[in-house]
C-alpha cells in the first residue's frame, strides 16, 4: 500500500467554478471497457473550443506540460459520477488537486484512486493559480500531512477531512482490502436488516 504524504511538482491551473465531469471527459470517451488512453482526451472539447477562438487551454499550454498538481476553483468535478474523469486527469499526469471544493462523488473517486484533493479558501485558490500562471516552473508542494500548499516562499493553509487524510497518510486510501477483512461483520449486519432477514 502506498502512503501519500507530500506531492511536489509543477502545477497547472484550470480556472472556473462548477467544472463538471462531462467537460473533464466528454461522454463519447466512456465507450470503453478500460481506462487506458483517457489522459490525452482530458478537457478535450474545452481545449478545442479555446483553440478555435485563438486561445490556449492550460492542458494545451506547453509551459504546463509535465505538471503534477492541478489547481482549480469551486465545485470541481460536479455532475456525472464517471470515474473516467479523475482517471483521465491522473493519466495525464496529475498526482494531487488543490481547489475550493469538489463534488462528493468526484472526491470519493479520487480517494479510491489515491489522488488527494485538498481544499483551500476562495482567495487562496485564485492566488495559487496566479502564482503558477506567472511562473509555471515554480515547484508546488501539496502537503497532506501538514495540510498546506507551498510555492516559493509562500504557504497556504489547506483542509481535508481527518478520515480521508488518515487514509492517504497510512496508505489505506484503497479501502477494498479493509472492507473485505470485515466480511463476517458485514454478514451479521445484513442479517439484522428486516428487508434481508424478515420480509425478503
Amino acid at each position, binding site marked *: 500500500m502506498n502512503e501519500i504524504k507530500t506531492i511536489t511538482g509543477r502545477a497547472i491551473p484550470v*480556472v*472556473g*467554478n*462548477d467544472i*463538471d465531469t*462531462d*467537460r473533464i471527459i466528454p*461522454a*463519447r470517451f*466512456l*465507450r*470503453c*471497457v*478500460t481506462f487506458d488512453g483517457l489522459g490525452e482526451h482530458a478537457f478535450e*472539447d474545452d481545449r*478545442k*473550443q479555446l483553440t478555435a477562438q485563438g486561445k490556449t487551454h492550460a492542458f494545451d499550454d506547453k509551459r504546463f506540460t509535465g505538471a503534477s498538481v492541478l489547481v482549480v*476553483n*469551486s*465545485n470541481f468535478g*460536479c*455532475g*456525472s*459520477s*464517471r*470515474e*473516467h474523469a*479523475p482517471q483521465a486527469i491522473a493519466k495525464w499526469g496529475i498526482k494531487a488537486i488543490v481547489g475550493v*471544493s469538489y*463534488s*462528493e*462523488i468526484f472526491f*470519493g*473517486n479520487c480517494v*479510491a484512486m489515491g489522488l488527494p484533493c485538498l481544499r483551500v479558501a*476562495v482567495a487562496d485558490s485564485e492566488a495559487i493559480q496566479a502564482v503558477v500562471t506567472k511562473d509555471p516552473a515554480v515547484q508546488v508542494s501539496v502537503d497532506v500531512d501538514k495540510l498546506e500548499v507551498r510555492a516559493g516562499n509562500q504557504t497556504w493553509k489547506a483542509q481535508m*477531512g481527518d*478520515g*480521508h487524510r*488518515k*487514509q492517504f497518510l*497510512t496508505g*489505506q486510501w484503497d*479501502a*477494498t482490502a*479493509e*472492507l*473485505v477483512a*470485515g466480511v463476517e*461483520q*458485514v*454478514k451479521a*449486519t*445484513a442479517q439484522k*436488516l*428486516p*428487508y434481508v432477514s*424478515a*420480509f*425478503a
Partner: protein
Amino acid sequence: MSSRTLFDKVWDLHTVRTLPSGQSQVFIGLHMIHEVTSPQAFADLRLKGLKVPFPERSVATVDHIVPTENQARPYADGLAEEMMVAIDKNCREFGIRLFQPGSGKQGVVHIIAPEQGLTQPGMTVACGDSHTATHGAFGAIAFGIGTSQVRDVLATQTLSMSRLKVRKIQVDGQLKPGVYAKDVILHILRKLTAKGGVGFAYEFAGSTFSAMSMEERMTVCNMAIEGGARCGYVNPDQVTFDYLKGREYAPKAEHWDKAVAWWKSIASDADAVFDDVKTFKTEDIEPTVTWGISPDHGIGVGESIPAKESFAKDEWATIDEAYQYMDLKAGQPIAGVAIDVAFIGSCTNGRISDLREAARVITLHGGKVNAKVKAFIVPGSEAVKVVAEAEGLDKVFTAHGFEWRNAGCSMCLAMNPDKLQGRQVSASSSNRNFKGRQGSPSGRTLLMSPAMVAIAALEGKVSDVRTVLAKAAKG
C-alpha cells in the same frame, strides 16, 4: 429513540463498523449496475481474485449506450457492442441478474428498479451513476458512486463512507397549473445553487411533496445531485406503500404488513433535528427553464436572462461564459428562444406520468411539431413503453409529428446515436445543461418539464405551457 431523521436511522442500521481510517463501512442493500461504469470494476475483481459475496443484492441493465431506433445486434457502434458483450459476460460469470433489451424489464436503471419493486424504503442504494439519488423518493438513502467503489460493493456489499449532514427542504402549498415536480426542483436548485448541497443529504418535506405521486417524487430526488447533495429523500408514506404493493420484487402478501410497519418506523421523527432547514412556497414557483450551462441557471418562463450582478462575484466568470456559450444576453426574455431539437425522456422525466402529461398538452394545443424542429420521445423503460402504447400515447405523439423510440438514456448524455449537431439548441426534459452534454461539443440545452418541452416542440421556441392550459380551460 426519537429526534432522529430517516437518514440517521438508515445510516446507523447499515453501519457495519468504523474503519481504522475513521470512515464508516456501510452495507449496501441494493446495488445497480449498468454497462458504462462497471467493466473496469469487474476487471479489477478478476485481477485481485475477489468474489461477489451477495450477488442477489445487485441487479444490472443496459441503458446508456443502447440505440433507441435500431436495436439489432451487433450494434453499428463497435465500441457500444463491446460494452454489451462485456456486461453480459460479467453478469454471467459473477451470477448477477441482467435485464436485457427484449426482457420487458430493460430500461434506464433509475426507472426499472422502482418499477420492479426493487427499490424499497429504509434501504441503502448505490449505483455507478450520479442520478441514483432518484431512489431516495422511496425513503431510501441512495447515492452515486464511481467505478472503484462499484468494485468495492461487488466485492464486499459495502462502501467506505463519511456521514452526511441533513438539510430539510420544506415546501408547502399546491402547485399551480402548468407547474410540475421538475419546476419545483429547478426552483430549489436556482435558490440553493449547484454547490449549495455539498456535504448534505436533502430531506424533501412538506405538503407539496406529500401530495406528489411517487413518479413526481422521483423527479425531485433525481436532481438533488445537481444541487451538490449526494442524496435526497422523501419520507415513506401511504403513497409509497400503494406504489410498491404488488410489484414483482416488493414484499409478498404474507410479509407485507411487517414490511409496512418497518417502513413507517424508519421515517424521520416529528421532532427530528436537522443540520439546516430551507423553506420554499409553491406560489413562488413558475414553469422554469434553464438559460445557462449549469442546472442552477433556471428562471421562470416569464423572466429574462439575469444580469451577472445578481450572482455572487466569484460566479461572474462562469456567468459570462454561460452568456457566450448559450449566445444569450442579460435582459433578453427566455420565452421565444428558438429551439432545433426537443427531447422527452431520461431518468428525470421518462416515466409514464411524464408521457401522459406531454400527450395531454400536445392534444390541447392541437398543432404539429414545428417544421424546423426534430422532436423525439424516449420511454424510460420497456415497461413504460408497453403502458404508453396500450393507452395510445404513441399514436398521439406520432400524429403530432414526434418520433416514438425504444427505452434508454438517449440524448440525456448522448452516448448512443441520439445527439445534437453543431450549435443546435434543445428543449430537454433531462437533468443537465452542461456544455457539450447532449453530444455536440458546442450544442446547447434548455432544461424544462416534459409538458414545456412538448409545447416548445410545437411552437418551435420556448413557450409558456400555461397559455395552452388556460385556452383549454376556457373551452
